């Protein structure tokens, strides 16, 4: 729902991802993280919902 809502607000859905990972699933955690990073790299730098600090 959060993903759909953020998408509705025009924010790239790739930036919000969820996965169920058990404490014992170390490999899965690593895979998911790699996946998240890859996806976010694909969308590029975030311009939205971003505070400007000089």
């Amino acid at each position, binding site marked *: *729902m*959060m*993903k*759909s*809502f*953020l*998408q*509705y*607000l*025009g*924010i*790239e859905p790739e930036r919000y991802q*969820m996965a*169920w990972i058990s404490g014992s699933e170390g490999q899965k955690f690593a895979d998911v993280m790699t996946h998240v990073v890859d996806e976010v790299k694909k969308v590029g730098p975030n311009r*939205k*919902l*971003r*505070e400007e600090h000089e």
Partner: protein
Amino acid sequence: MNDFTNKAREIAKRLLADGTVSVVLGWEKGDEPYASAPTAITELAEVDRLIIDEYCIHEIAALLTDYRDGTDKVAIFAKGCDVRGIIRMIQDRVIPRERLHIIGINCPGMKDPNEYARAASGFGKAPAAEIAAKCQVCQNPNPFIYDEIIGDLQKVEPSNERFASVEEIEKMTPDERYNFFAQELSKCIRCYACRNACVACNCRTCIFDESKPQWVGRSTDTVNNMLYHIIRATHVAGRCVECGECERVCPVGIPLMLLNRKLVKDVDELFGPYQAGLSLEDDAIPPLSRYRVDDPDEFM
């Protein structure tokens, strides 16, 4: 609606006199013809202040949070939308059904006293609608849970427009959507009227009042305003009774129902058709407030 007023006073007198309740929540008249306002009557001698007229638009159930800590019984005059709010309050354990005496009002639709005050003020140019926008699309003018009832049943024009405005937004490109919402929410002055007027926003301690940790910055920039509204809307997802009060009370005219209705629509699509505050039965608890083994994964 004079007979509504007479009936209301009669009922309130009886309830206060025989000790059924110790407070009556209703409306009273202000100093302009359109200025009706919610009130709490505790004295028999004050009952004649009560009125019901075409300006009683306020979602009066929101005031029930003031009585959460007591044990006294509370009488509340309630339109169809108010009853949905009351049900939410009961389901969220703000106040038990047993402490409430609900006097339903079959509601012909209300005028918005704020619109009239603004139109008369000379501070803006928008005219006041004959019937408030939110009442024109109301599907629940008749209370369905009450202890007694005032007025005749109102006919409901079925409408398929519930998600029309949300679908319009969905057709836009992501950048258009972001720019649209960023523009609208940049107007927000963070008065929190949308939160305080909301029957679903009934938490004892609100996260926006918390400083440890502070979830949303208090600066009024577009980002923090958006974060505030994202969190607020998400928090009432599936619990919003679609009364439109947040939008009505907003002093800067942000179309907040576009946020709420999107989440209502998503809950509908994920969990099957659902409307908050329509029933007190156990299975009518909002989908996001209960757990089922077959809940879809996307609920988060």
